[in-house]
């Protein structure tokens, strides 16, 4: 468990702080995530998927569930601004918090995201990091539902080309 924690803590913490936007809340959530990993280890089947997928999916779901709580919605954290994938100097390749194993993959993902038009990237960000449906995104961004669907489709197809097919 310690090995798992050390391998994933920074990746998960970075992801959930992007979702929750509050360090204390994110640490609380991280504790809940690792407790659930310990409890749900029985359900993990290595033949059905990677440990990475199992852990990251669980972490994202936990963090997004928190944003849907009444208490969270009441707070400032559920602001109405549209965020995008941000690319800080730390995310440009020498982040000391980044696990070596994930560094190269992260660079590929960030590079691929930067190649996308901003509008497509925004839709993917809101969907992944806010857990919003297409109709909720349309409402939040004040654009037609068809436009959200189009941008999501185009963005994912391009990311697939950059991340999977270009490998």
């Amino acid at each position, binding site marked *: *468990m*310690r*090995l*798992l*924690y*050390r*391998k994933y*803590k*920074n*990746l998960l*913490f*970075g*992801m959930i*702080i992007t979702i929750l936007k509050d360090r204390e809340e994110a*640490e609380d959530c*991280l*504790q809940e995530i690792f*407790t659930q990993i310990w*409890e749900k280890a*029985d359900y*993990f089947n*290595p*033949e*059905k998927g*990677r*440990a*990475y*997928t199992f852990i*990251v999916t669980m972490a*994202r779901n936990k963090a997004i569930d928190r944003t849907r709580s009444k208490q969270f919605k009441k707070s400032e954290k559920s602001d109405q601004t549209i965020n995008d*994938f*941000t690319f800080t100097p*730390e*995310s440009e390749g020498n*982040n000391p*918090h*980044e*696990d070596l*194993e*994930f560094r*190269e*993959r*992260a660079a590929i*993902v*960030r590079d691929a995201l930067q190649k996308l038009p901003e509008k497509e990237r925004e839709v993917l960000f809101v*969907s*992944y*990091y806010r*857990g919003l*449906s*297409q109709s909720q995104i349309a409402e939040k961004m004040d654009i037609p539902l068809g436009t959200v*669907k*189009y941008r*999501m*489709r185009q*963005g*994912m*197809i391009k990311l*697939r080309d950059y991340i*999977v097919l270009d490998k």
Partner: protein
Amino acid sequence: MSDSEKHTDFEALCAGYVLDALSNEEKESFEKMLESASPEQKRMYEEMQLVTNELALASSALSPSPELEETILNNLPPKEESKPGSTKIFGLSPVVYKVAAAILLIATLSLSYVSFQLSNTVSSQENRLTELTSQLEKQEQLLDILSAREITFVNMDGLDPSPEGYGKIIWDSQRGRAVLQLANLPAPPPESDYQLWLIKDDGDPISAGVFNFNQPSDDLFFTVEQLNESPSELSNTFAVTLEPKGGVPQPTGDMFLAGVQN
């Protein structure tokens, strides 16, 4: 293409589905499409799922407080403790004594059972964690190969015994290692293994190892440690055949996958 066609075809629904952004009706519609999807569409679905999972890497990694590690590890759910019951039976009638004795007996048996179950649960969780750790070590090996300066990709297509199968080779020829992905192949029978071959130009096949698994999947990765061959400048063909357990010096069984380096 009309506006509605644009947003209800496989690609559009697939993108929304993997991001969990569709309405319930659209989800159901996509799941039906997936049941009868072509191999290419299934591959697109799997690759979009992979892309979605990779989005987690886009946020900047950050360290939580150092003390959180001990807090988390020390506060993992404790094993359920037995709850000792206190039974006051003094001054009660013999019938009550008998009832109390029966209750105690049942409670004792129940606690023994719970204790047995808990012990099984702990053992099972430990096994799962061992599997997780082993999976991580395997991924590290795979990534080590992927990080090589020069790697060669070879796609293998499914042949007659399993036309929906496919495979990939990621070959680090400088270090004589490779990653093999096998997808949509049936599990080999108990007396057989899959065997990977490298055929340089028109030469004899060279064995690159045997592989086995219990359940078919599209996400089976193996490290190939026996590929100490320098690639031919003309042609390098990879093939997977079904062979007797442990492998054979030259292929004898059906060929399931084959692909030539472009």
